[in-house]
Every structure is written in C-alpha cells, then in structure tokens.
C-alpha cells in the first residue's frame, strides 16, 4: 500500500491519528491553540457515526470521557492549559478507577488565563499527578507533527495496556504548525482489545457484575489498591521510557529539552558545530516516566547539562534529581509565550562550557 502522506497542522494530525487508532468518542470544549483539533474531530467523527460532543466545559468533557472509557470504548479529550486545570479532578478519578483514556494538552502560557502563545509550563501539573491523591499517568511529548500523530496513535494502545490515562503533552507551536506527516493505518474497531472489567453487554456472557469506581473506605484495602497501582508504575518505568539522543557521546555539554524547545536546541547544535564545539541533545519523549537512568548515566560520565524549557524551570527539577549532584545542571527558559532562540540557547551553552565543571 502506498504511504498515506499529507501536509497537516499538528492539531489535525493528532485528530486523524486518534480516529485511525479507533477512538469511538471524543469530547471537547473550545480553547486556543487547540481549536482545530476539536473541529477536526467534529467533522471526522460525526461522518463515521462515532460520538462527538462539544461539552459545556472541560470538567464535563473529561467526565464524559470517564463514562465512555468505563464501557471499554477508546475515547479522547483535548484542551489547552487552563482547560487541563479543570480536567484534573476527572483525571484523578480515572486514575483511581484505572480507566484507559487519552488526553491531549496543547500547552499555552500561564499562569491564569496567561496567553495563547506556546508554553511548556504544565510540566509539573502533567507529570506529578495534577489532581488529588497518589497517582501518575503516562505523559508523552512530541517534537513534530509526525511524532504528534505517532504518539497519539500509540497512546490508545498504551492506555489499554496499562489501564491508565495517557497524556500527549504538546504545545501551541506543535499544534499550529504544518508539516508533512505519514499517517498510520486505520484500526479495525472489531479487533481492538477486549476489556472484561468494563460495564455493559453483560447479557452477552452472563459474567458477574462490574463496578467502575475509585471509592474504598477501608484503609487497608485502599492502601493495597494504591500499592498495586504503584507496582504497575514500576513496570511502566521499566517498559515505557522513551528518549532521543543527538551527539551526546562527543558532547561536553548536553541540552535537555522536549517538544518545541528541543528543536531550538538542535539549531544550537548546528551553530556549535560551525564554531568547532561539540554540544549534544538529550530529548525526553516520555516525561512520565522520566528517563532518569539515562540522565544519571550521562551525569556519571561528567557531561554538563543545560535544561531548556518554555517555562521558568520545571523539567529541570527532574534533570537535577536524576543527576543527583554528579554534574552541573544549568537552566535556560523563556516564558509568557516566548520561544527561546537558537542564538540565546547557544550563547548560554557557551557560557556554561567556559565555566569550571561543578563536580
């Protein structure tokens, strides 16, 4: 079969990948810079007789997803930063009830209403379990339209495999820009994984009744359920860590950056090459689980790090935790909707390369 290549906006590519992954229900609420995604889903779900609802709020949208996921259907919601704040309650419940679903955050700048330009300041909220209670969920950060489509497509499989929400953490630039994208094949809806824990269709098998719930008032039982979930988190940390490395072997200083920021760093790597300096890039793709082992290995080799983010410094804390004092960890960030320039990032790297190692 000829490859299905198109020129698409990131928001639309995410939508198309979701449709092809077998998403049967999408629930959203308008917010810039992800509006194209909601509109794309309206057009491309309704024409296939799948469910699309423009909900009355992000709170409602995530709870519609909660209900649809409880029936075992593949389901998704998307929003941007302020909307994600509203979804946190629902995400906590979904994690507590072990429901697979997909959430897309096309980040903008904050706090508060902030701006509509790209940001990366929802890293804490996304990777630390942004709602109440002890929980985590997978967080994947694309750097391009192609990767946004690929990760979204895979997110549905990961959600089903691990029975948890999977978040695609993009930003306004990835959502808005157009790039060539090779689209994955459409999934056969009849061949999607079966979910014996889901509600509905009891008459088919006469199975015992199912409950989807997160409540448990017996402390020992709730603790046991939480511990069981954390044992699963340990497995995920073994199985699902993803990252990309560029020139980290030769480099004296390694940028650590994800999504849009990592592309800026790639530009700075080119500038460094011309200047005869070896810089590298370490790009976490899975933000949770964070690639802490590999960061620790690079730290042990004496590489200096420079974390670059469109925030006041959030992911850098994970880099510092992983480096555990073995090396110097610098930070360069822009925020408010600004994207760091290659020149700024290169200049900061050169300043750090010039300094004594902090070992």
């Amino acid at each position, binding site marked *: 079969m000829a490859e299905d290549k198109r020129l698409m906006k990131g928001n639309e590519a995410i939508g198309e990948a979701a449709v092809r992954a077998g998403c049967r229900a999408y629930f959203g609420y308008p917010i810039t810079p992800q509006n194209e995604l909601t509109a794309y889903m309206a057009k491309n779900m309704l024409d296939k007789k799948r469910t699309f609802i423009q909900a*009355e709020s992000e709170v409602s949208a995530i709870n519609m997803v*909660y*209900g649809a996921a409880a*029936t075992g259907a593949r389901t998704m919601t998307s929003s941007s930063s302020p909307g994600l704040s509203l979804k946190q309650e629902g995400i906590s419940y979904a994690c507590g009830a072990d429901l697979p679903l997909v959430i897309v955050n096309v980040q903008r700048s904050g706090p508060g209403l902030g701006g509509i330009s790209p940001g990366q300041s929802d890293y804490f909220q996304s990777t630390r379990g942004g709602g109440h209670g002890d929980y985590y969920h997978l967080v994947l950060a694309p750097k391009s339209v192609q990767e946004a489509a690929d990760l979204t497509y895979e997110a549905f499989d990961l959600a089903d495999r691990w029975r948890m929400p999977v978040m695609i953490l993009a930003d306004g630039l990835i959502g808005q820009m157009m790039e060539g994208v090779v689209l994955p094949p459409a999934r056969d809806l009849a061949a999607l994984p079966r979910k014996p824990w889901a*509600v*509905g*269709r009891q008459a088919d098998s006469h199975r015992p*009744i199912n*409950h989807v719930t997160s409540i448990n008032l017996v402390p020992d039982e709730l603790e046991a359920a939480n511990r069981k979930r954390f044992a699963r988190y340990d497995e995920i940390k073994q199985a699902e860590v993803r990252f990309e490395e560029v020139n980290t072997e030769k480099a004296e200083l390694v940028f650590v950056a994800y999504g849009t920021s990592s592309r800026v760093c790639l530009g700075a790597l080119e500038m460094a090459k011309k200047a005869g300096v070896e810089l590298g890039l370490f790009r976490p793709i899975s933000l949770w689980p964070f690639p802490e082992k590999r960061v620790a290995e690079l730290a042990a080799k004496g590489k200096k790090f420079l974390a670059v983010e469109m925030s006041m410094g959030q992911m850098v804390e994970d880099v510092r935790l992983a480096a555990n004092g073995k090396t110097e960890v610098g930070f360069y960030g822009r925020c408010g909707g600004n994207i760091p320039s290659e020149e700024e990032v290169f200049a900061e790297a050169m300043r750090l390369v010039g300094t004594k190692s902090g070992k």
Partner: protein
Amino acid sequence: MELAYGHPKSLKPIQTKYCPGCGHGVIHRLVAEVVDEMGLQERSIILNPVGCAIWADLYFDFDSVQPAHGRTPAAATGIKRMLPDHLVICYQGDGDLAAIGTAEAVHAANRGEKFTTIFVNNAIYGMTGGQMAPTTLVGQKATTAPYGRDPIEAGMGYPIRVCELLATLGGTKYLARGSVDTAVNVRKTKQYIKKAFEAQMRGEGFSMVEVLSPCPTNWQMSPPEAAEWVGQSMAAFYPLGEIKNTLEEAKR
C-alpha cells in the same frame, strides 16, 4: 401458584446501610422492580453518585459506574452514547444535581441525552451531615443554615424547583415528581419511573423522575414525622405529578 410479591432480582437480598426512614432504600427498590419488569437486569447500568446513594453499587445487582460529585450526568452521557441499547440510570441527590453539578444536569437534559435521571430530593446534604441543599425549604434548619434558610437577609437564595427549571429545555421529554411518603405516592412514583425507563428505551430524549424523599436523621425527626413533613411541607412547595410529558404516547 404465581408469586404475587417477592424481592426484586435486580436488588441484592442484603440489608442497606441507609438510616431508618431514609427514602433511598424504597427508591432503590422501585428502580429494581421496574428493571425486572422490563427484563433489563443484564442491560442496566447505574451511576452511583457522591452522596448517600454512593452505596447503590452495593445493592443493585447490575453494573455500576461511580463518577465525581455532580459529574454524574456527564459520565452518564459517555456511557449511554457508547451503549445506546442499555438502560442508563443517572441516580443523583439534590446537592449532586442542583448545586455542584447544575451545569452537567442542565446541559445533558438540553442535549436530550437518552438516559433517565432519578433525582432524590431530600432537601438536605445527607452524606456530609445535614448541610443546606439547593432544595432546602425557606426557614428549614441545616447545620449551615442554623437559623433556618433565609433567602434575603443571609442571602441563602431560594429552593430550586428542578423539574420546572428543566421543563423549558427542548431536550427534556418527561419530567415527573413523585414522593415516597405514602403507599399511594410510592405506587405513583413507580409508574413515573416505568414511563421514564420505557421512554429511554424507545430513545425519546431526556427523562427524569424527581422523588421527594425523607431524611429523618438530618432533619432530626422520627421516621413518621419525616414522612409527614414530606407530604405537608415539601409537597406544598414541590408539586407532585407529571411536570412535563411530551412523549410520543402522550401526544396520541
């Protein structure tokens, strides 16, 4: 010999945790009887809400989904859209439906979501110990309205008539208000529930049965006093009957 009266199959034969005189147990039973009569035990899903009825999943012998406080109609929307041939029962208290979840309830109703809301109006927050509810009557005492609900001076607002509020919306097809204070009203309430469930299974649109229900514990009354208060005080403000019926069969 034919069995004239027995325990509904859809309700487990166990004692509930509900307080003596509480309406939830009676309402559970009515729902279960109708589910049985319609032969839908293996095709029913109940949403057990945050509130006293969170225990519903212990008692109903069919599938259940427990959503966040007030988000019950949103979760019910997701379920019903995925399983349109199932009976989806969105069970809610007055705090769940008419305070924290007002937006979800109004918009699910307005979209004409094809599930049935069983709205248990006990004019109080039961689970959390007797705080004022949006349906608390003027002058009625609650832990957070210790001198009685005062709409003007204390700015506590007025009790909300939910059926009447939803009746203006195009998506609502059947809105009835029953009560479980007397045997007659219990029987009528069951008829409303049956009409609503049948309308749901025909896919007609949003249906809701509000049930005036006693909460002797938090009203600090004996069960007989509480039942009397439902009939005298609550029913005086919340009129019983079919508030809106635009079902196809009603038009004939």
